[in-house]
C-alpha cells in the first residue's frame, strides 16, 4: 500500500509548480489513467499527491492570436463539443468523438492523455497532425516559468516524455490551420471489436490546387511512441494527390510503422490496418 504523506489541492499554477519543485509529486485530475495503473501495480503513488482540478488558468479553449490554446484540464468531452474546435480543427473533434466511452470522456483531461504518453494516445495523434506545442510550466527563480516543446519532439520512449518531473503540462497550442487545410482521423472501430488494436491514423495538410503540402501523418499503436510517419509524409509532400501518390504513400507505411505482436493484435494486422486507414484517409482528403 502506498504511503502518501501529503495531499495538496492548489488553486493556482504557481502554487502547483512550487510544490512540484520540491519533487516526488504525483499529479492527478480525472484519474482515468492514474487509477487503473496504480491498481494494476504499473505505477506507484509518491509521497505527495496533488489534485490539480482547482488550478485556475488551466482550462478553456480559446483563440490566442493566430493560435488556438487548449488548457490541459480541458476534458475530452469539452473538446468534442467545442464549436471553435469543430470549426478550426475538426480532426481533433473526430478523435474526441471516438475516445473510450462517454464516462471516460467526461473525466479524462487532455493533459493527462498527453502525459500518459501511450503510443495509442488518441488525442495525441491529431495534435501531431496539427503541429501542436505543449506548454510546460515549472517553478524557477521564484516564479512560474514556461517553455514550449513541439509535440513531435515530446515523446522520447514508451511512456516517457520530455517533460521534467518538476514540470506541469499547462496547455496545448496549435496554429490555426490555413483555410486550405484538410485533416482527417481514422481509428479502428466500431467499439469494441477493433478497439483492441487501437490503431489510428491522422493525416492533414494544405491542398494547393491538387498539390498536397505541409503534410503531417500521425500513427498510433504502431511504434513505441505516438509516431510522425516521416516516410509517408515524404511520399506525399509537395506532390499532386492522386492514385499514384496514394499508392506510394501506402507503400511507405512499412518504412515508418514498426508494430509489435501483443495480446490485442499481431504486427501483421496492425500494419495491414494502418495501410488500409492511410489509403482511406487520403482518399477522403482527395474527395474533399
Amino acid at each position, binding site marked *: 500500500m502506498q504511503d502518501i504523506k501529503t495531499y495538496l489541492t492548489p488553486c493556482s499554477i504557481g502554487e502547483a509548480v512550487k510544490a512540484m519543485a520540491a519533487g516526488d509529486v504525483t499529479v492527478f485530475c480525472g484519474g482515468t489513467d492514474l487509477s487503473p495503473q496504480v491498481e494494476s501495480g504499473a505505477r506507484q503513488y509518491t509521497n505527495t499527491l496533488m489534485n490539480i482540478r482547482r488550478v485556475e488558468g488551466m482550462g478553456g479553449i480559446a483563440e490566442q492570436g493566430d493560435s488556438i490554446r487548449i488548457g490541459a484540464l480541458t476534458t475530452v468531452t469539452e473538446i468534442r463539443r467545442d464549436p471553435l474546435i469543430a470549426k478550426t480543427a475538426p480532426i481533433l473533434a473526430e478523435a474526441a468523438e471516438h475516445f473510450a466511452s462517454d464516462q471516460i470522456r467526461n473525466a479524462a483531461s487532455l493533459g493527462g492523455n498527453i502525459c500518459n504518453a501511450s503510443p495509442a494516445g488518441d488525442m495525441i495523434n491529431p495534435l501531431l497532425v496539427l503541429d501542436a506545442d505543449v506548454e510546460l510550466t515549472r517553478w524557477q527563480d521564484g516564479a512560474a516559468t514556461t517553455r514550449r516543446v513541439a509535440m513531435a519532439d515530446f515523446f522520447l520512449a514508451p511512456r516517457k516524455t520530455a517533460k521534467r518531473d518538476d514540470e506541469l503540462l499547462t496547455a496545448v497550442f496549435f496554429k490555426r490551420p490555413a483555410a486550405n487545410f484538410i485533416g482527417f482521423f481514422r481509428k479502428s472501430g466500431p467499439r469494441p471489436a*477493433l478497439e483492441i488494436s487501437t490503431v489510428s491514423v491522422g493525416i492533414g495538410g494544405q491542398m494547393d490546387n491538387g498539390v498536397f503540402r505541409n503534410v503531417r501523418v500521425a500513427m498510433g499503436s504502431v511504434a513505441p511512441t505516438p509516431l510522425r510517419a516521416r516516410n509517408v509524409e515524404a511520399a506525399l509532400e509537395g506532390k499532386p494527390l492522386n492514385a499514384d501518390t496514394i499508392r506510394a504513400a501506402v507503400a511507405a507505411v512499412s518504412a515508418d510503422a514498426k508494430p509489435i505482436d501483443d495480446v490485442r493484435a499481431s504486427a501483421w494486422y496492425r500494419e495491414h490496418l494502418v495501410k488500409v486507414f492511410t489509403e482511406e484517409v487520403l482518399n477522403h482528403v482527395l474527395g474533399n
Partner: protein
Amino acid sequence: MEQKVTAASIEKKSLIGQRVKKPDAPDKATGKTRYINDMVLPQMLIGKVLFAGRPHAKIVSIDVSAAERLPGVHAVLTGKDAAGLKFGFVRDNVPLKEKVLCEHDEIAAVAAETEEIALKALDLIKVEYEDLPGVFSPEVGREASAPQLRENFPDNKSLRFEFKHGDLAAAEATSDFIADNVFRPHHVTHCCMGTSCAIADFDSNGKLTIWTQTQYPYNYKMDLAPALGITPGDIRVIQPPVGGAFGSKLDVYPYEPIAALLARKTGRPVKVIYSREDEFRASPTRQAAIIHMRTGCKRDGTITFRTADVLLDNGAYTSWGPTIPVIMMRTTSGHYRVPVVDFKAQAIYTNNPYAGSFRGYGNVQTTFATAQQMDILADQVDMDPLAFHIKNAQKSGEVTPQKSFLRECVLAECLETAARTSDYSRKRKEYAAERGKPGRYKKGIGLASSIHNAGGAKIHKSDGIGTILKVDDYARVTVITGASEIGQGIDAVINLIVSEELGVPLEHVTIVNNDSDIAPWDVGVHASRTTFIAGNGTRRAARKAKAQILKAAEKMLGEPAETLELRGGSVVRDQCGTPLIKLDRLLRQMHFQAEPELVMVTDYYEPNSEPEGADHISNHSAAYSHAVHVAEITVDTLTGEIKVDRITSAQDVGRVINRMGLEAQTEGGIAIGLGYALSENMQLERGLLKNPCFRDYKLITAPEMPELEMHFIESNCAEGPYGAKGVSELPTIVIAPAIANALFNATGVRIFNPPLSPEKVARAIHEKQQQEK
C-alpha cells in the same frame, strides 16, 4: 351463509402471453436491492485467496508466519488445512492445493478485518515453487511423452463418452457428399457483472449457513459437504440476489469451501469476493473442444450419417465442462434427421483453467459444427438450400436415434418463417453472386438452426421441483418454490401463473425461493428447464389451492364447484362472470368456521421423462424445441470487421407465457452468442490468461446489437405449462454458426475456430486473395 355481491360481472382476462413486469425490477432500478456482493454482516471478516500464478509446479515451501502476525489478520490457511477434503464430480479437487495444476490454483487464504489488510497479508505469504513442464492442449496431453499430471489418470485421460447407432460404413458408401472439417470452439467465460462471492458462517451447533450465488441449492449441499468434511444436512443455503450466473454457479468452486473453512477457523462470518481480474482467471470457462465432424448426404439431399470425434481440454480439474458430451451427442444425433451416428469424446487433463456449465452447454460448440456443415452440403446437393434443410427437418412424433421423442416438432415451420421474413433464399443467391466482384464491403446472409432440451434434462436421479403455496386471510399468496431466480425472470413467470390461476392481482403474490431451510427441492437452473418445471409445479400447486377454495365455496354458496372460477379477487360463476363472494372474505370464513381450514398446499412435480442412462438412449427430456436464426451481415473485406445488420429468429417456445420476459431472454441470449461468435476470446498462453480484463476481453456493447426480429412459434407442448417449452439457451446456441454461414456467403471464407475476429477474417480473406492470384 351466502354473501350477495352485486358488482358487475368480471370478464376472463388471461395473463398468458401478456407483458408482465419483473417483480424485483423497481428495487433493482432504484439501487435498493442488496446483492450478495453488497452484503455486510456484523463481525464479518474479509477473505482473500492467494492464487498460484503459474500453471504447473510443486510447492517446495510455504511460510505464512509474517501474514499471521499482521495486525487484523484472523486466520491463514494453506493446503495442509484442506488435506483430504476432496470434492468435485470425480473428487479430483480440494479447496486449497498442495500442488499447482493451473494458474488459478488456490494456494492460501486469509481472513482479515478489512480487504486492505487481507491483501497485504497475501503479499506477506512466501511460497517457493518448483516449476514443472506443463500441458497446454489436449492434443499434447494425450501423447505418451506428455507429463503425467495426475497419478490416477494415465495418459491424462479424464471422462470418455460414446454413442453409436447404425452401420456407418454402409452410410458412407451411399453418400454422395461428405462435409469433413475440424472445428475448434474456444475458451470464453461468463463475465457475470457481479463477481464471485460467498459468505459463510457457522452457528454454535456447528451448522453452516452459506450465502452463495449457487443456481442449484440442493445438490450444492451434497457437493459442498465433502469439501468441508461435514454432512449435507448441516448446510443451510441462502441465495441472495445475484449479478448473473449463466451456468457458472452450477458447481462448487474452491472459493466457497474456502469461505467456510475460514469461517470455521475464525468463528466469525467470512466473505470471500473476487476482483474482476480474479474473476477472469479463476471462474470456470465454457468448455473448449476440438471437434472433427463429418456429415454425409445423398445428392437428393437426404442426410446419411453424422460422426463426431471430440477432444476436450479438461483443464486441471473436472467440473461440468467435460460432461458436455452428454448434450453434444444429442445434437450430433438429433439435429435434423440423422439415420446413422458415431460419436465419441475424450477429455484430457491439462494445466489450463477448467470449464463449467455455460448457457448452451455443449450445444453451442456442436451446433457451430453441425449448422456449418449443413450450409456446406446445401451448396452441393441438387436442390434449393432451404429445401435441403426442410427435407431433413423432423416432424412431430419422430424419435431420434437416442430416443429423444420430438412430440411437438416445428423445425420446418421455424425454417420457413425465418427464411421467408428475411428473404433468405433470394439474398443468399444474390450475395453469393457478388462475392467475386470488386468492392470493399460485402453483404452476407446465413442461416442456422438447432435443437435443445426444452422440458428439463434427467441427468440426475430427479429432475423435479417442490412447491408449497399458501393463501392467507387477505387473499395474499405466498409461493415457496425450489426454483432459483438468477435474473432470468422465473419470478415473473411464477407470479403470472399464480395470478392467472387464482385470479389475484400480480402485486398480491410473494415468492420465497432462496433459503434451503424453507423452500423445497429443485435440481437447479440449467438445461432451459425452469419455466417448464417450475411453471408446471406452480400451476399444479395453484390448482390444488383453487380446488380447495372452490370446494369450500361450493359448501358455502350451494353452487357446484365445477361452475365456479376465481377471477379479479372474487369467486365468480365461470360462465357469466357474476361475482359471488370476494376471495379474501371466503378465506376468512374458511379460517373461522367451526372446522377451520387454511389454504396450504404442497406439490411435487417430476417431468415425464427418462433418466439419461449410461447408454445414452432415453427420452431424457419431457420436451425438445428448435430455433432458427438468419443473420445478415456486412463484411469490411479490408479490416475484416463483421457488422451484424439484422437477425431474424424463429423459435419454438411452445407457448408464450410472459412475452416481455421471453423477448428479454432471447435478446440477452443472442448477445452472449454474438460475443462468442465475434469478439470474446480467453487468450491463454502456456496456461496463463493474457487478457483478464474488459479492456482486452471484448463483450458485446450497445452499439453492436443489431436489429432483431423475433418470431415465437407456439407448438403447444402437451407436457408444458399452458403448452410452454424452455427457451433461454437456444438464442445463444444458434447465432454463431448463422454468422459463420453469412461470412461464407459474403466472402467465400469459412472460419472453423471462433471468434470470427476482424484479424482472423482479414487474414483469411487476404490468404484467399493470395491463393486466387
